[in-house]
Structures are given as C-alpha cells and as structure tokens.
C-alpha cells in the first residue's frame, strides 16, 4: 500500500494574518500544517497499518517553509517527504497547484506504483476544496471526496459521505484520489520518539524542472484566477451584552433575526 498525502503549509489560523500584493505574508514561526491535512495523514497511516506494509509519502507544494508541514507529517508517522518548491511556482492558483501535485504523483508512480492520493477536505487559508478533483482529473484517476468513512477491500475504496440530509456510499477502484472530511478520524498526537526522529529526518526537494512542469502551467503565469484585493476584515463589532430580566430570550431571538441567523 503506497499512499501519497498532500499537505499544505498555511498561516496559523490563531495568528494575525497579513497581506502584501494580495498574497498572504508567511512568517516561518507562525506557519503550520493545514489542520485538515492531519485527517488525511491519519487516514493514510491507518490504511498502511491495516495493510501491514506500505509507505506514506507526504508531498507539499510550497516555499521553503513547507518543510514545516512535512515535519508535522513525519511526527505523525509519514515515511517519506517531498517538498515541491520553486520560485516558478509562486502565485500558483488551484490549477497550477494541482498540476504540480499531479506531476509529483506521476514521478512517484513511475518509481513504484502509487495506490492512493489522500487530501484533506480543504485548506484553511484558501477554502477552495477543488484541488483533489483537479488532481484526479490530471491523473485520470477517479475522485472520492469528503469521505466520512473509508474502507478498502479488494482493490477498491468505499466511502461514506454525508451532505445535508443525505448519506451516500461511493466506491471506486484504485488508484484514486480521496479527500477525507474532518470527521473521518481523530488525528493522532505525535509521540516523543517521532518528534525527535522528525527533527533530522530528511525530505527531498523537487523543482519545477525536476517535474518537467511547463512554465505557463504553474505559478503566476499559469494562474487562471486573479486576486483583486485581499485585506484583513475589520474586527467584529462590540459584543452585545444583555442582562436577563425575564426578557433575555426575546432579546436573543431579536438578535438572531436581525443578523439573519435564523
């Protein structure tokens, strides 16, 4: 069982986020792994553990700080890491990122067959949730998205997913691209031994040239969307405190109605 997990380096959602030229300013000390990718790593580790053999390869398309995300994957137990990093990739949108990831998976697949690519349900800084599907399209593999439950048997993955009032079961044969929901599992905490091992564990760095990416397919040049503006939202309004003198329920209902929350 050989599984590629995509991990993204994102600004810590608890930290203040800044923008410059419509791009997020990334400060190494404050960045972290996209939390939702931890569910993908967990899902991959569980499948490999159940199979009794295999490899989890964490892949990140990022600047040099992407190593932070890889190290987190190592701490959880990923066996190998690839950082796809190149100035030519800066400014990639969903299409460019998916192209770079697809080329990475293809290169890994050429060395030894990749059974599965697992991603998180979204990146907390982008919230597009389209990269898994774009990646599957690039690879010509089926995509199973937003899995709440994942079962692997006889060369096929069956997932359960929930949307509003519908529960679906979907299945596809390997190889495929799978995105897991944040309810799919509880990501494990890294243990002390893996934390120490991850300090010195080496990852590979691949450039756009290593992956034979066409310059017009990635980076700013390959971007099909343009960010026109990006600025922090003003802080939320003052908290409205209501002292309950028997009318608290009515005040709450009025607040919810006023703010279109019901």
């Amino acid at each position, binding site marked *: 069982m050989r599984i590629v997990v995509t991990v993204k380096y994102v600004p810590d959602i*608890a930290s203040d986020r800044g923008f410059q030229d419509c791009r997020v300013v990334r400060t190494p000390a404050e960045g972290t792994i996209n939390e939702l990718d931890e569910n993908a790593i967990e899902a991959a580790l569980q499948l490999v553990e159940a199979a009794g053999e295999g490899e989890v390869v964490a892949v990140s398309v990022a600047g040099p700080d992407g190593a932070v995300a890889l190290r987190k994957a190592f*701490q959880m137990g990923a066996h190998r890491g690839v950082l796809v990093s190149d100035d030519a990739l800066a400014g990639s949108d969903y299409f460019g990122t998916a192209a770079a990831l697809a080329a990475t998976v293809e290169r890994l697949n050429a060395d030894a067959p990749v059974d599965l690519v697992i991603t998180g349900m979204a990146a907390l800084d982008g919230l597009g949730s389209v990269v898994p599907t774009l990646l599957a399209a690039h690879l010509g593999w089926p995509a199973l998205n937003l899995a709440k439950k994942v079962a692997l048997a006889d060369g096929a993955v069956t997932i359960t997913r929930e949307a509003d009032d519908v529960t679906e079961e979907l299945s596809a044969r390997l190889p495929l691209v799978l995105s897991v929901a944040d309810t799919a599992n509880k990501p494990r*905490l*890294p*243990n*002390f*031994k893996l*934390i*120490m091992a991850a*300090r010195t564990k080496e990852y590979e760095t691949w450039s756009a040239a290593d992956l034979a990416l066409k310059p017009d397919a990635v980076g700013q040049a390959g971007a099909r969307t343009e960010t026109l503006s990006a600025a922090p939202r003003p802080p939320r309004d003052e908290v409205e*405190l209501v002292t309950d003198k028997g009318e608290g329920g009515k005040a709450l209902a009025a607040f919810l109605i006023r703010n279109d929350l019901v």
Partner: protein
Amino acid sequence: MSTAALTDLFDVESELAPHERETRDTVRAFVDVEIRPHIARWFADAYFPREIVPAMAGLGLLGMHLEGYGCAGRSAVEYGLAMQEIEAGDSGLRTFVSVQGSLAMTAIAKNGSEEQRQRWLPGMAAGEIIGCFGLTEPTAGSDPGTMATTAVLTGGEWVLNGAKRWIGLASIADVAVIWAKALSDDGTPQVRGFLVPTATPGFTATPIEPKLSMRASIQCDIELTDVRLPEDAILPHNPGLRGPFACLNEARYGIVWGALGAARDSLEAALAYSAERLQFGKPLAAYQLTQEKLANMALAVAQAQLVALRLGRLKDEGRLDRHMISAGKLNSCRVAIEVARQARTILGGNGITLDHSPLRHANNLESVRTYEGTDEVHTLVLGQHLTGIAAFR
C-alpha cells in the same frame, strides 16, 4: 495574543528549542482532549482514569527520561515541560506519571539488574504493567531510616513483613518496589529494594479514603505479611537510603515543573473569568485590586518557570545538586499553592465548585507540597546547605 503568551512575562518560550516546544505542545493537546473535559467528574467521583494510561504510554510519557527498554529517552527539560502540561490538567494524573516513571521505573533502572530491567521496564513503558513505590510507612515519613519493614533471607527466599502508607497506585499496581531493612554482610540492617509482584500472597493494598486532595489518583496502605519472594527479587545495586533517594530526586525534579502547571492553569482560569465577570457594571479585570492579584500571580509563575528551566538545563548537563532540587521543589510548591488560592478569590463563590480548576489545584497541591519531601524538609536541606548544620533532628 494567546493567554499562554500573555502570561509568559519573560519570553521563556524563546529559550526552548523547537523539539522542546513540540513535545510540550503534544502533551498540552493530549491534556486538552483526554483530561480537561473529564477531570471535574473524575475528581468528584474519586476515580483514577486507568483507561487513558495506554494513550499516555503511546506518547512516551512513562519513563520518558529513561534510555532504552522501550522508554523515550528524553531530556530533563522535555520531561519537565511534559510534567508541567500534565499537572495543568491535574496533579493526581501527573502523580501517576511520576510514580510510574520517576519512582518505580527509575528504581528498577538505577538499582535493578539487567534481567530485572528487561523483565519489567518495557511493559511499564508501554503502560501494560503498573508499578508503585513503597518507602513511606505509618510511622516513618520524613525519616525513612526508621522504617520497620524487614526482609529476611531464609531457605533461599526473602520474607517481607511490615506496612507502608501513602503509596500511590498500589491497589492497581502489578509490581511494587518495596524498601525494607535487610541484614548486610556485616550484620547491620540496611535499606534494600525488592520487586514484589502484587499478586504475591501476603501483599495487600487498600486505598486510603476519603481524601480532600488528589482525588483523581490512588494512594494506599500496604500490608506485608510473610510475603515470600525468590532470592533474585532484591535490587542488587545502591544499597542503603541512596537507592530510594535517587528516585525521589527524579520525582522532585518533576514536581518543580509540575506544580507550575497547576499554578499556570489557575492563573489562566482567573484571568479569563476576570475578563467576563461583571460587577458594578464593569469586568473584575478592570479593578485595581484584581489587576494586582493577576500581576502578582503572573510574576510569581514566570519567575518560578525560569527557575525550573534553569534547573532542567543544569540537570541535562549533570550539574544539578541536591540542594537545588530542594530549592526548586520548595519554591514551585509555595508559588503554586499561593497562586491557586489567590486565583480562587477572583472566581468568588463560583470558585468553590468543580466548574473551575483553581480550588481543585489548591487542594491537590496540599499533597504535592507534602510528598517527596515536605516544605519543612526541603527548607532544612537548604538550611544545611547554607550553614553546614543538619537541623533535621
């Protein structure tokens, strides 16, 4: 800025290496998920949550400062940081980690034979075997040299008789390290350690109840009545009181950090509450008296954390002296219990319920300041260090 960053007055954070912060953050996340949501109920019910032991072992918390035998082999600073986070959850659960790792496992690692280490340590590190450490007796607390428990070698067997008190985990332990007086080669009684499987006939452990402190952990009376052990049950190395004292120093070092976890959690609880609780139309935090309390608590905790880190770095360099451990344990316990009690005052009447942590911490810290050397004993160790005069007797 997070609360943790606010109360780190001297940016101690930046003194920590990335892997040290990651170790701490892992334990903090563990406490947030596995301990905080349940601790009030466990404390109320006087329940030790044995079900979280496998997860603690999975992180590498049990015997984490020991090398080999399935132990994580982490530094003193990392061990201290982990203890601080566990005790921010509850002193009783940190006590479990201390008894298992710093006392029982350390006794075997420091004083045991290679066969004994191989037999017991991997299972203890994995949390599959629970250990306890029997030194204190009903009439021998601060003065363990007066212990009455005896071990006599007859017919190729050791026979142990006596009683122990305040022994953490004894009623759920699989193996007990029991310290008893045996005759040395020259015929004088000498304190020796013995590995006693708790299923051995004549071994009885009874939890001490009811308690007003450490309710989420277990402390027991042990009765030893003609407990027969094979000849190789004795710990061969370091005869005399230095055997158990070396273990106690490990546990005391853990307390230097651990108690500050309880203090920090109390401070954070009071700080959060003071911002929300309105009296006379403004938050408690807006009153000068509250701010003074918060400032004094934050200052005391931050200073003590610097001391703990300094002691940890010295320990990692092999330069930690006995009086330093006493100074650190005394200081941390004093600070922690004072901060926990002061934090309770900010919580007002609500602070006496289990909805808030400070009084629970304060009650637990009554035990923490008493075990592994009382405040008084550590004061006298410092007195002896300064004057050269032992005033214990």
